[in-house]
């Protein structure tokens, strides 16, 4: 299971990369493998105001639909429009081309609440057991 060291994580299986003050968000390798083949990603409109851990969209696989939760409060700055035609990017490259939204955080302290790679590894280890 791939869990990059430089990212932060939520218990809802989103990852966050802080890129020049902007939070890039996607779902983890663990999440995509649990969901199976992803067929649709519903993303928010740019400019939407989000509160921390509020749903901002959903990801649909052949067997289920799961909400996506915002790891930080802030404004949606960009969405990955490539996922509309190629939702499978979430399966093939969850931490790269499968990114979902870029959020300009309004509360940088939200980031402190997130899990580190070690904590997330332990969390999904516990969940798998």
């Amino acid at each position, binding site marked *: 299971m791939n869990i990059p060291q430089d990212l932060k994580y939520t218990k809802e299986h989103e990852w966050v990369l802080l890129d020049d003050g902007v939070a890039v968000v996607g779902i983890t390798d663990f999440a995509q493998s649990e969901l199976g083949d992803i067929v649709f990603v519903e993303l928010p409109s740019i400019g939407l105001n989000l509160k921390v851990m509020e749903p901002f969209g959903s990801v*649909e*696989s*052949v*067997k*289920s*639909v799961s909400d996506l939760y915002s790891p930080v409060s802030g404004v949606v700055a960009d969405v990955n429009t490539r996922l509309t035609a190629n939702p499978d990017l979430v399966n093939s490259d969850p931490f790269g081309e499968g990114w979902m939204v870029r959020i300009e955080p309004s509360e940088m302290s939200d980031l402190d609440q997130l899990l580190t790679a070690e904590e997330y590894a332990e969390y999904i280890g516990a969940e798998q057991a």
Partner: protein
Amino acid sequence: MSAFVQHTDADRRAMLRTIGVSALEELFADIPESIRAKGGLPIEQGVTEPETLGKLAKLAAKNVSAASHVCFAGGGMYDVAVPAATGAIASRPEFSTSYTPYQAEVSQGTLQAIYEFQTIVARLTALDLSNASMYDGGTALAEAVILASGAREGNRVLVTPHLNPHHREILNTMLEPTGLEIVELPRSGLRTDVAAITADAQKGAVAVVLQQPNFYGALEDMKAAGQALQGATKPLFIASVDMSSLAMLEPPGAYGADIAVGEAQPLGFPMSFGGPAAGVFAAKAEYLRRMPGRIAGMGKDVHGNRAFTLTFQTREQHIRRSKATSNICTNQSLLALMATVTTALLGETGRRLAAKVSAEKAWSLSRRLTQIPGVELADPDAAFFREFAIRLPREVSPRAILRKMRERGFLAGIPLDPLPGGGRGLLIAVTEKRLWSEIEAYVTAFRAAVEAERGGARSPETVSQAAR
């Protein structure tokens, strides 16, 4: 195994005890006391079966229906011609006893029938997709507004004042938990004032609901409404349509509707005393994942053969639980099948002919009735398809006319008391099934009923007519 295993009194007591209820009646607590049948059926003990059946048949014969009377009543359901073959095909046990088609490997016939129904609905409405059907037109309409409330930001829905009143009640009930405010558009006679759908009015609205033809039979300017609703964040345009009118009128897809809903009944199955019905739900492709209800899809099996299956089930309750697009987890397969069979049997030529004949007969009846002194079209400026509203002389009660007409063998229409804007009238529908001789007899009976209601007094009009 026996097909029917009866409960004994001991079984019933055990079941009630298990769920902690002391009497069967307690289970009906949600049904208002005033409309509950009390004390079981009024049949004496010790009566033979033939005698009982005879009594029940006599009781049933008191019902007035489209089978016992010549029906000119509409208001959403219509006494359309249903070919005998439709009933024969729908009665086949493969269809009439089939269970919910989750297992595609044993349900190809049912699934194909649903797929064909969807194809017919999508073609008639000129929209991209259709679901497998809803409970009825009213719940389909409410589900359409609920879809819109998820697709658009806002807290209001703009609704025609001339919506079918039953559908309006269903909207009130089903939208109550959503907090959406229902705002009525202004009326212009018996039509909706679509000029009121301004950019300002659209602010904060998730949808605009119009009905075509509207409850009073009048044709709305759907094109103007579609033109008023432009832009990426505009309210969704929901058209509630008479499905059989689409043989003659423009389809919702052509005037920019995002969603079309309606009753499937006018496509070709009996009214059955007002139900069961089947609802139609069609939408543009972009709303696929927000659609309520089942959708049958066409694919290939492991051998590469064409195969049908339920699809996009991730929207549905059995998978998405509380976040499902809707609580409906069924459809009205058998009725949708009947609509499909009738539509296929008639073909495009047959449907157009039926629509044309209905419209001609309705127009002719309206002309004949308005020659009766004091009777006029409730809105002479409004065009209509096969149903129209008339205004009666002030002193004439619509219900009294209906009673007199019933005695003469007619279900004469629906009372409009009051008409929008005042006065009293009737809503009259004419289907392709009505014979010219029935229309002739209707006019004669109607004239007599109106004259009798006016107390036989020779009004100024009748005097001047007599003088001519």
